[in-house]
């Protein structure tokens, strides 16, 4: 698989016609409704053109027609595998605009929920990545573990996928009584669960053959295309907004920023991106343990006026989501609704790198690359 198209053509007197094939929009390995127009030369890819927009709902226009608080449930449906983190980013953007303070207990609950959701999102990422490459069982293990997190969310806010849990100045409900015990139980078995995934998938000979040295993004290329989150960190850039621009209480928490090292191949290959997510889950579990230990008593929400009107002005705020930096650009005219709202979805940028890295790779490797950047189409199409 390491032979490039040019090497093959050099020894071949035959030049074959390119063939254009269509991948998606309805295809399990495209992780949603993504269409790729693939021009191939035999088994090799000449070019790839992603076609997005199948899930477009024009959320930015919706944002101009609903109040700030009413937009909260819409953010759940951006990256629908990390609803808590989207809620959180939106809440923090509006809090920055209006200068709202968040009570201490609410900050801890927010971090707990955000990090549990990061784990849940990464579990789907690695589970479906295994599935893309032909390994069925890791998916079942991953979803089994994710189910426990969904149960915790359901007990806390009533929903399993679209939570609408965060509020400006806090969260909507306090943690249920049994949360601490059940979450502790989940975390107690979590590291051994990840060890199991390591033996099932990370160190699996076939899996390494399919992912190491495949789809290498250099740090410069990744940043040129606006890649953030694990996709950028796997290329060796230790950029994690929780560390480089700490928000909430992250400056008080102990965690490591995970970067790729080219352990199984070249720095920034598919295996590095996969491994970054595995290791980040361990760090997220570590953060949740600290928060559960130090969780203070007190208020969970700052009181806001019934009709909420942030002051005039504009603000850009980005938070570290499981998929990368989710940014909200809000322009306020002092009314109850945003005058303009722009969403920087990290997956949108991740998928835009595909044409730049697909030339000369084999068709099977395109699936490996696509799975490794972990996109969610709800966020690409917005």
């Amino acid at each position: 698989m390491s032979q490039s198209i040019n090497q093959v053509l050099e020894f071949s007197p035959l030049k074959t016609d390119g063939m254009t094939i269509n991948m998606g929009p309805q295809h399990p390995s495209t992780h949603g409704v993504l269409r790729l127009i693939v021009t191939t030369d035999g088994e090799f890819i000449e070019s790839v053109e992603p076609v997005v927009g199948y899930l477009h709902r024009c959320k930015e226009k919706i944002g101009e027609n609903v109040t700030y608080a009413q937009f909260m449930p819409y953010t759940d449906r951006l990256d629908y595998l990390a609803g808590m983190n989207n809620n959180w980013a939106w809440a923090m953007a509006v809090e920055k605009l209006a200068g709202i303070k968040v009570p201490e207990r609410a900050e801890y609950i927010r971090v707990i929920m955000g990090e549990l959701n990061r784990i849940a999102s990464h579990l789907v990422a690695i589970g479906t990545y295994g599935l893309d490459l032909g390994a069925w069982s890791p998916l079942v293990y991953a979803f089994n573990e994710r189910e426990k997190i969904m149960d915790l969310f359901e007990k806390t806010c009533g929903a399993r996928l679209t939570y609408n849990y965060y509020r400006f100045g806090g969260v909507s409900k306090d943690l249920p009584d049994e949360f601490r015990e059940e979450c502790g139980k989940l975390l107690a078995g979590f590291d051994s669960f990840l060890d199991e995934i390591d033996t099932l998938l990370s160190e699996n000979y076939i899996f390494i053959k399919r992912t190491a040295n495949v789809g290498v993004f250099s740090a410069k290329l990744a940043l040129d295309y606006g890649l953030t989150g694990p996709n950028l960190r796997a290329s060796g850039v230790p950029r994690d907004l929780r560390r480089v621009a700490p928000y909430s209480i992250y400056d008080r928490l102990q965690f490591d920023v995970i970067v790729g090292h080219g352990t199984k191949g070249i720095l920034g290959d598919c295996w590095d991106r996969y491994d970054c997510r595995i290791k980040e889950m361990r760090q997220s579990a570590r953060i949740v343990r600290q928060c559960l230990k130090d969780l203070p008593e007190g208020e969970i929400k700052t009181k806001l006026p019934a009709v909420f009107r942030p002051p005039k002005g504009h603000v850009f705020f980005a938070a570290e989501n499981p998929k990368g930096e989710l940014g909200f650009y809000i322009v306020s005219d002092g009314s109850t609704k945003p005058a303009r709202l722009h969403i920087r979805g990290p997956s949108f940028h991740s998928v835009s790198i595909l044409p730049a890295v697909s030339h000369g790779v084999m068709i099977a490797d395109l699936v490996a690359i696509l799975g490794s950047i972990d996109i969610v189409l709800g966020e690409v199409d917005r």
Partner: protein
Amino acid sequence: MPSPKEIHDRLKSQFPGFILDFVEERIDPYTQVKPEALARVAAFIKNDSELAFNYLVSISSLDEQGTLNAVYHLQSVDLQTGRTRHGVILKVCVPVENPVIPSVAHIWPTADWQERECYDLMGIRFSGHPDLKRILTEEGWVGHPLRKDYVFPTEYRGIDLT
């Protein structure tokens, strides 16, 4: 680590006549740039060794009082530490009758899709873009939904939407 004001002054002396006001906002101050100079300003701040804006965070578009605006959020990221050295916000204003802004897709590849999105939803045309076409709405869609005067369609391919 230059402040937005220092970056503004630096640009003003480099491109006299093309850098307009420095707008002191409550949270994020921004620099207004004349559209015809944008591509040159962009190339300068990307390649200058001190400024080195290597990360185009986001291109947003605004429809304000008969003008269309593109807002560029830029950061200079240290690849060794991952930290943001400094940031700047550039705002480019064009008349709604002829909204043309030079493309920066050849400077920051991520601008390619972001400019297509601005074109699709706001109708700003980016001159010199390699393939300026709709990205989120489908081919043949009428109008640009994020314009303030956008009229919602009442039917779509024979389906009544009212």
